[in-house]
């Protein structure tokens, strides 16, 4: 393949938020917006250091709140990307946006820069739930943001929703779902609330200020979503993702296909050449490193051995509704998955979590909700880990 640059996805992390949400444990900083210009300089420096002139089929601005960037700043970064990489024609360019930070003019401006997919963090269309989550926007603002996105010319729109909230019942979730379906987005990501230690929401539940979340209610909510969304023409193509046909998120598919991606910015993760790497999650360290022109040095660099690579390919692939193509894996790794994991496959098939049909191994509907039970069984005994 000499001479042909390989194809990767590109992730750019924008770790700034106007306010930290009550459930978020990810790397994002409130009150550091003054650092944005310096951060973008560092980000561009990192891009320059890490490029090998690959071709890129997806560019994803994630956060944090990437919509805190000015259109000119987004232009500046995209220009850099275009200079350093070979950006495919028709590349999917996604920006995550907080409905409380965007208006039509802004959206029009970034659409004009080539951003062709917008992912809005709606989370809920119920104001008391939004308040509980610590979001900076209301349900009305979320609806307005959707309309503005449409007017601005976005025809590939994702909405994020969160279910399994403390005190959220099936009825209120049904309302949010129905209203969301009425907004007619092309793509929907539904995430069960994960209570991470150290977040204020976790704390509130620990201290009994908020009710405990009943996992059975979350399961009911998930099943309700499957039902309503299917009826509305959405395909449940991945455990947490639904899309109208043809609108599956290409960027995330790279993750699920265990493809290669370069993540730049603070706390960003990459998967390249059989290594998984991550950057420092400390903003000051990140800024200092690139301000001083230091060579790139990842905080974590893990070589993924063949055994683990296979396991990850299987685990990630099973997240997709089509499951994993057994032939493809046989060709790639020279092993038959069903033989290699005979014991696990039998056990999980018997438990009704896995099924094998037409050369594909996939999760059953029940298996999707219990996927961790399948996945941990597929991990190799001792992960072959090398850190450097």
């Amino acid at each position, binding site marked *: 393949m000499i001479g042909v640059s390989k194809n990767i996805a590109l992730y750019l992390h924008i770790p700034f938020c106007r306010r930290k949400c009550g459930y978020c444990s990810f790397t994002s900083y409130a009150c550091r917006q003054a650092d944005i210009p310096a951060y973008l300089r560092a980000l561009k420096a990192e891009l320059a250091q890490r490029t090998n002139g690959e071709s890129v089929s997806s560019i994803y601005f994630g956060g944090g709140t990437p919509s805190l960037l000015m259109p000119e700043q987004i232009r500046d970064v995209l220009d850099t990307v275009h200079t350093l990489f070979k950006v495919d024609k028709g590349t999917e360019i996604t920006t995550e946006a907080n409905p409380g930070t965007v208006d039509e003019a802004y959206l029009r401006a970034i659409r004009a820069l080539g951003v062709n997919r917008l992912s809005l963090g709606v989370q809920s269309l119920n104001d008391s739930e939004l308040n509980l989550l610590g979001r900076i926007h209301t349900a009305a603002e979320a609806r307005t943001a959707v309309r503005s996105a449409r007017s601005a010319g976005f025809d590939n729109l994702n909405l994020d929703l969160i279910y399994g909230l403390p005190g959220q019942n099936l009825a209120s979730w049904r309302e949010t779902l129905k209203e969301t379906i009425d907004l007619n987005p092309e793509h929907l990501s539904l995430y069960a609330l994960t209570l991470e230690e150290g977040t204020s929401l976790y704390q509130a539940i620990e201290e009994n200020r908020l009710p405990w979340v009943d996992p059975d209610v979350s399961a009911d909510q998930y099943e309700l979503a499957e039902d309503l969304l299917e009826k509305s023409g959405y395909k449940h193509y991945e455990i947490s993702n639904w899309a109208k046909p043809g609108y599956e998120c290409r960027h995330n598919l790279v993750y699920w296909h265990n493809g290669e991606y370069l993540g730049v910015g603070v706390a960003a993760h990459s998967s390249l050449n059989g290594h998984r790497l991550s950057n420092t999650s400390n903003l000051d360290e990140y800024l200092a490193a690139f301000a001083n022109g230091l060579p790139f040095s990842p905080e974590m660099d893990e070589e993924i051995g063949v055994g683990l690579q296979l396991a990850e390919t299987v685990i990630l692939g099973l997240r997709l509704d089509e499951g994993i193509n057994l032939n493809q894996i046989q060709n790639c790794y020279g092993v038959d998955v069903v033989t290699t994991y005979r014991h696990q496959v039998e056990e999980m098939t018997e438990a009704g979590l896995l099924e094998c049909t037409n050369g594909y191994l996939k999760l059953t509907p029940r298996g999707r909700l*219990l996927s961790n039970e399948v996945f941990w069984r597929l991990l190799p005994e001792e992960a072959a880990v090398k850190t450097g």
Partner: protein
Amino acid sequence: MDQSLIRNFCIIAHIDHGKSTLADRLLELTGALRREEMREQTMDSMELERERGITIKAKAVRLTYKASDGREYRLNLIDTPGHVDFSYEVSRTLVACEGAILVIDATQGIQAQTLANVYMAMEHNLEIIPVLNKIDLPSAEPERILEEIKNVFGYKQGEVLLISAKTGQGVPQLLEEIVNRIPPPRGDATQPLRALIFDSRYDAYKGVIAYLRVVDGKIAKGDRLLLMGQGTEMEVLEVGCFAPDPLPTAELAAGDVGYVATGLKSVAECRVGDTVTSAVAGASEPLIGYHQPKPMVYAGIYPTAPEDFLELREAIEKLSLNDASLSYEQESSPVLGNGFRCGLLGLLHLDIVRERLEREFGLALVVTTPGVSFAITKTNGQKVTVTNPGQFPDPSQIVKIEEPWIKISVITPSSFIGSLMELFREYEGIYKTTEYLEQENKWGELGQRVRMEYEMPLRSMLTTFYDQLKSRSRGYASLDYEVIGYREARLVKLDVLVNSVSVDAFSRIVPPDKAHDIGKVMVEKLREVIPRQLFKVPIQAAIGGKVVARADIAAKRKDVLAKCYGGDITRKRKLLEKQRDGKKKMKTIGRVDVPKEAFLDIMKLG
């Protein structure tokens, strides 16, 4: 040393009444330790002891005290175990002393176990110096407690000292009283050697170290000695005293307290309560009748992972070198694999053994529900002893079951009498007596203090009895017990089935009319503590084939990691690894993963 200048004494106190603090203060005032040299509570050197505030192994320390009469005295303070499980060791400590300081908390009054120990001290003719401790606390009620001491023990005003071990108030006077009131030892150094072992522990370099009180004769390095009760012979490798660190001396003579290094390999060869004499031309009579304390409580101890069995065996062997009261026998359970049936002095002893195995040897253990030893007569006339419910014979083969009974003594303020009497009835207690400790006009706000005696099966006391006693009396009631013998019983074996597999570790022997209630509580608890599985799990309690209680654990429905944070696959994998490792720590029973806490939780049920 002139025997008239020696005083041997111990401290009798309830847990938390200030024994260790007082010992620290005595060490400090006699210059054995400077304040800054002291760890808190020097006498309790085992980590576990300090954490629990109890003393498990007795120790001795030699203090040099210059009294106001100008003479220098040698005070030997012998520490006593503070828990009812170790009453045999306490009784041997008392025999080694001429006097005892009775410490009573001025905020709490006399506790049942203190009372039992004082009576024991009186039986052995010890001179008792009662002291009221913690008089510096605002909640102290010295007048009321003094009245109680007067009523219960008959001590007059002026005989009881008021002290604060914490601040040191009254402690100098206590030292004077020790010299003045406790008689010097009366042994004869020219007679054949007789010394009493009141404690022993294993040392990796010197073998068993015996702590002893020399009554007659003397001991020097190189002497050949004989243990009269056990018949063990040994050579003295070293003699010395504790000051408070071990200090080798030339000899120990009549009246002295100290240690002997024996080179023996296990404390089982050199048990507490035995009399030491010379191997040649020794004494003819021991100081006191020797017997081994019998285990009263039995429990199975298993490694959570079957492959750790050899490690567990090694750990128990090592532990028993230092704990002569721990007996063990290998057994194997269909569910738990290979382990040991351990015999222990009581529940606290079991707790200590479990904790030490886990902490000092890093083992993950499953401990089964503790039980007693049943004497069963079978239809074929054979008599068997059963310490493991799993080995309980089929009911059709049983003619007679006998089980150990205890006499309990409880001291409580009278306002809790009603609810405690109800508790004793629930736990099969039979009323014996009630005794009032105070006069009517001196009642505290919870009424006057009362001592009640009941008889009950030891089996009844092995579950939640003590917790219930404490909670129903808001912590005020205190308990002492002694075993009074075996009585006939009507009992059945209650089995617990997890996913249709009988779990011998959960089996227990219960009265038939309580089987349903006990079974209900057990299955409900298991439903709570066993995590949901991929399938529905029935939990049943049954007698023979008859199910008396059932609870189902619904199948788990949701276990999913949703968001992929910017491609952080490593994080997802780490979470899955954690989940996998968590599963490994569980015991798989009938395809069901049971966390080891479940065994503990069931153990604690009533």
